[in-house]
C-alpha cells in the first residue's frame, strides 16, 4: 500500500512539527511520520516540559490539515521519492515530492561496570516507562550522566512520587546551565527553579559527578558515584542515565545527504546536498528547541515554495545569533571513556566485552570480528559509545548505512516497490528472474 504527499516530514519533534505545520499552512498535502505513538519528540512528549511554545505548537499541529502517521517507523527507501514504513506488521510506502528530515537525536550511553544490570536505564527510557505505567512512587532513583534531559526527567519522576536521591551531572555547573537552558528552550532561571524543585523533594544535585559502577547481584542495588576523586555508594532501585545527545543520522545517510563532522550539512534554507531533501533540528547540529522550531519553519516554507518567507526567517536566525551547542567531545569528560573494565559489556545485543574491542583498529574490523553492533540495535548504542571510547571516527552507523535502517519484517523489506510510487514515470528495471519460471 502507498500514500502520496507533496511534502513528507519525518520526525514529530519540535522541528518536524514546525515544518509540517508551516508546509500545511502553505496549502500543501503534508504527511508527518514518527515512530512514536505520540508527537512531541524527546523533549516535549513527556508532558513534563511543556512550556508555552510546546503547547502552542501542539495546538497548531492538532488544527493543521495534515496526515499524521504516528507510530510508523521508516526503515528503507526502496526507490527515489519513496520511504518505506512499518507499524506493527503493516508496511506502507510513503511517496513524496519534497522530504523534510527532522529525525532528532537520541541519548548516548556509556559503558561502566554493572551498567547492564536490570533497572539501569536510559533517562529518557525510564521516563517513557513511567509514562507507560511503571510504578515509580516511593522508588529510589539516581539520575546521572550529562545533558538537558537529566533535569527534565528528574523533575518528572519526582512529580510522579519517585524518591530522586541524586541527580549527577557530569559537567561543571557553569557549562551545563546555559546549555540545558538552550536545549530545552527555557530561560536559565526557570531551569534553576526546576533544579530547586527536584532538590526540594529531597534530591541532591551534584555537578562534576558521575557513576563509576553499579553494584548488585541480580539487579541494581546501589551505584558508586565519583566526584573530585571521592567515591561513595548510594542505594537505589533505578539508575537513569544518559550522556548527552547524538543526532539520528540513519535516514539522512541512507538518502545520501552529505554529513560532515557528525552532522547533516544544510544551507540557510535547510536544503541538504540531495535535491528535494531538507533537514531540520538536531541532525544539523545540537541546537535546542528554539533553533529546531526555527529550522523546521524554514524547511517547511522552503519546501512549500515560500522561499521569500523562508529566507526572512533564516535571516532572523542569523540576527539572533543562534549557534549550535557545544560538540559532544567538548561536553564529555575524557575520564568517562575510561570507566569500563575489560569484562564490561559494550555491545549488549551480542555480549561483546570492552577487552575484545580494544584489540581492533577500527569500527569495521571490530564489528566483523567480534559482532559488536551486529544485533537488532544495529550499533545505535555501542557504535556511539565506541566512537567516544576509542575515537573511531566511523563508528557511527552512517559509515555503512544500508536498509533496513531499523529492524523490519522480512516481508516488509522484501515487498516490491514496483507498483507503488513511480516518481520518474519509468518502469523499474527489476531483476530478471527468468530462470525461476523453470521451477515455479
Amino acid at each position, binding site marked *: 500500500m502507498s500514500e502520496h504527499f507533496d511534502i513528507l516530514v519525518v520526525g514529530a519533534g519540535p522541528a518536524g512539527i514546525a515544518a509540517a505545520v508551516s508546509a500545511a499552512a502553505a496549502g500543501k498535502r503534508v504527511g508527518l511520520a514518527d515512530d512514536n505513538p505520540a508527537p512531541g519528540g524527546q523533549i516535549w512528549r513527556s508532558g513534563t516540559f511543556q512550556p508555552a511554545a510546546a503547547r502552542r505548537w501542539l495546538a497548531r499541529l492538532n488544527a493543521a490539515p495534515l496526515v499524521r502517521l504516528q507510530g510508523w517507523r521508516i526503515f528503507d527507501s526502496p526507490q527515489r521519492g519513496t520511504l518505506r514504513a512499518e507499524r506493527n506488521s503493516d508496511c506502507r510506502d510513503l511517496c513524496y515530492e519534497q522530504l523534510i528530515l527532522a529525525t532528532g537525536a537520541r541519548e548516548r550511553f556509556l559503558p561502566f561496570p554493572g551498567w547492564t544490570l536490570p533497572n539501569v536505564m536510559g533517562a529518557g527510557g525510564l521516563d517513557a516507562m513511567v509514562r507507560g505505567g511503571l510504578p515509580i512512587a516511593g522508588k529510589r532513583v539516581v539520575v546521572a550522566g550529562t545533558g538537558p534531559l537529566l533535569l527534565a526527567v528528574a523533575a518528572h519522576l519526582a512529580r510522579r512520587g519517585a524518591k530522586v536521591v541524586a541527580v549527577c551531572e557530569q559537567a561543571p555547573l557553569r557549562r551545563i546551565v546555559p546549555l540545558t537552558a538552550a536545549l530545552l528552550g527555557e530561560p536559565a532561571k526557570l531551569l534553576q527553579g526546576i533544579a530547586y524543585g527536584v532538590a526540594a523533594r529531597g534530591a541532591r544535585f551534584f555537578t562534576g559527578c558521575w557513576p563509576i559502577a553499579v553494584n548488585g547481584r541480580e539487579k541494581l542495588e546501589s551505584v558508586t558515584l565519583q566526584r573530585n576523586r571521592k567515591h561513595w555508594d548510594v542505594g537505589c532501585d533505578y539508575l537513569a542515565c544518559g550522556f548527552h545527545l547524538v543526532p539520528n543520522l540513519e535516514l539522512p545517510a541512507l538518502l545520501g545527504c552529505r554529513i560532515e563532522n557528525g552532522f547533516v550539512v544544510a544551507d540557510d534554507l535547510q536544503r541538504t546536498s540531495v535535491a528535494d531533501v531538507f533537514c531540520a533540528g538536531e541532525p544539523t547540529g545540537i541546537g535546542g528547541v528554539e533553533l529546531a522550531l526555527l529550522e523546521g519553519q524554514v524547511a517547511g516554507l522552503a519546501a512549500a515554495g515560500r522561499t521569500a518567507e523562508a529566507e526572512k526567517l533564516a535571516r532572523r536566525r542569523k540576527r539572533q545569533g543562534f549557534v549550535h551547542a557545544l560538540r559532544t567531545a567538548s561536553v564529555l569528560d575524557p575520564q568517562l571513556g575510561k570507566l569500563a573494565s575489560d569484562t564490561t559489556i559494550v555491545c549488549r545485543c551480542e555480549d561483546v566485552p570492552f577487552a575484545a574491542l580494544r584489540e581492533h583498529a577500527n569500527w*569495521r574490523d571490530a564489528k566483523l570480528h567480534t559482532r559488536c553492533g551486529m544485533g537488532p540495535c544495529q550499533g545505535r548504542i555501542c557504535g556511539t559509545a565506541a566512537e567516544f571510547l576509542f575515537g573511531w571516527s566511523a563508528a557511527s552507523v552512517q559509515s555503512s548505512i*544500508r536498509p533496513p535502517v531499523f529492524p523490519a519484517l522480512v516481508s516488509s523489506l*522484501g515487498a516490491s516497490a514496483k507498483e507503488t510510487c513511480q516518481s520518474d514515470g519509468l518502469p523499474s528495471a527489476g531483476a530478471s528472474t527468468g530462470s525461476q519460471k523453470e521451477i515455479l
Partner: protein
Amino acid sequence: MSDRWDVVVVGAGIVGAACALECASRGLRTAIVEGRGIGGGATAAGMGHIVVMDDSPAQMALTHYSQTLWQELSDRLPRDVEYEPCGTLWVASDEEEMQEVHRKSALYATAGIATAILDSQMLADAEPHLRKPLAGALLVPSDAVLYPPCAAGYLLREALRLGARLYAPRTVLSAQAGKARLDDGSELQAARIVHACGADAAELLPGLPIRKRKGHLVITDRYPGFVRHQLVELGYLKSAHSLTADSVAFNVQPRRTGQVLIGSSRQYNTEGPAVDAQILSSMIERAQWYLPEIGALSAIRAWTGFRAATPDKLPLIGPWPEDDSLFLATGHEGLGITTSLGTARILVDHLLGEQTKIPIEPYLPSRFARSEAHA
C-alpha cells in the same frame, strides 16, 4: 628499504590467510599484506557455507577436498568461527528436480560422499517450516557452515604464530618480478608472490579474466531452530549459475546464534555496493515461496559483496605464465570460503614441486594465458 621473503601473500581474505598458513606451516618465510581489514573483502560478505558442488568434475574435486580439510580442522577451530556441521538439504520442488536428487546422490556416491534421499514427508519432518508439499531433498550431512571473517582471522593468527609476518594496513601497489611495492614506499622481495586479492585481482594484474559478481544477503534476528540445515533449491544450478542474466535463488542458512541468513543473488555489471531494492525483493519473494513464514521474522541487516568470477567458473590457482615469481589464488566466485583450504594446499604443493592430492591442471591460470591473454 627492502625485506626478503620466500613468499609474499597479497591479500588477507580467507584465501590469502589460508595460503599464508600453509606456507608458514611448510617452513617457508612468509609475509602477508592486507590493504583493508583481515577478511574484510568478499570474505566478510560470504555466507560461509562449506559445500560440495558438482557443476564440473574439477569443481567437485576441489570442493570435496576442501570440505574434508575443514572437517579435519574443525576440532581446532575456536568458538567464534561458529563451525556447525549442519549439512545441506538440496530441496526439490517437483519430480524433475527429484531426478536431480537421484543423479546427484549417485554422483556423490562415486566420490565417496554419503548422502540421503528424503521423500516429501521426510523433508517436512526435517524442516517443518518449508512449504508443503515439496517433492523431497538430498541431504549431504558432511557439509557445514561457519562465520567467514573469524575463520580468516583464525587462519591468519595461526600463520603468525608459525612465524609469518603481517603488513597491514598496507596496499600492494605493484607485484611483479619478485618484488611487491607497498603504499608506504617500502618493498618486499620474495622468491614467490601469491596473488590472493579476490575480486580486486584485475586491479593489480590487468587482463586477468575476472569479473565482479555482486551478491545480496539478509540476516534476521535470532530464531533458533527455524531452519536446521543449509537449504538450497535445486533450481540453483539452473538459475544462479547461468552466466549471463541477473538471478536470485533460494539459499537459507541457520547460524549458530539462531539467526537466519537469507540468500542469494548474482549480478554482473554493477560496481557499487548499494543494496538494490528490486533484487532484494525478488530474493525475499523466492525465500518466502519456500519458507512461507520467513516473512514474519525480523530482518536486522542486509549487505552485498562481490565474488570474483571466471569464465569457466573455476578458480585460478598456480603460476602466472607471464611472470615466474607470480602465483595466483583468486577467482573463487561463490565458493572461496569452502575452497580456501584446498586452494592453499595444492598451491603450496605445486610451488614446492610436490605432488598435489588432486590434479591442479583444471585450475592453472595458464588455461587463460594461452587462449586469451596471447590472443
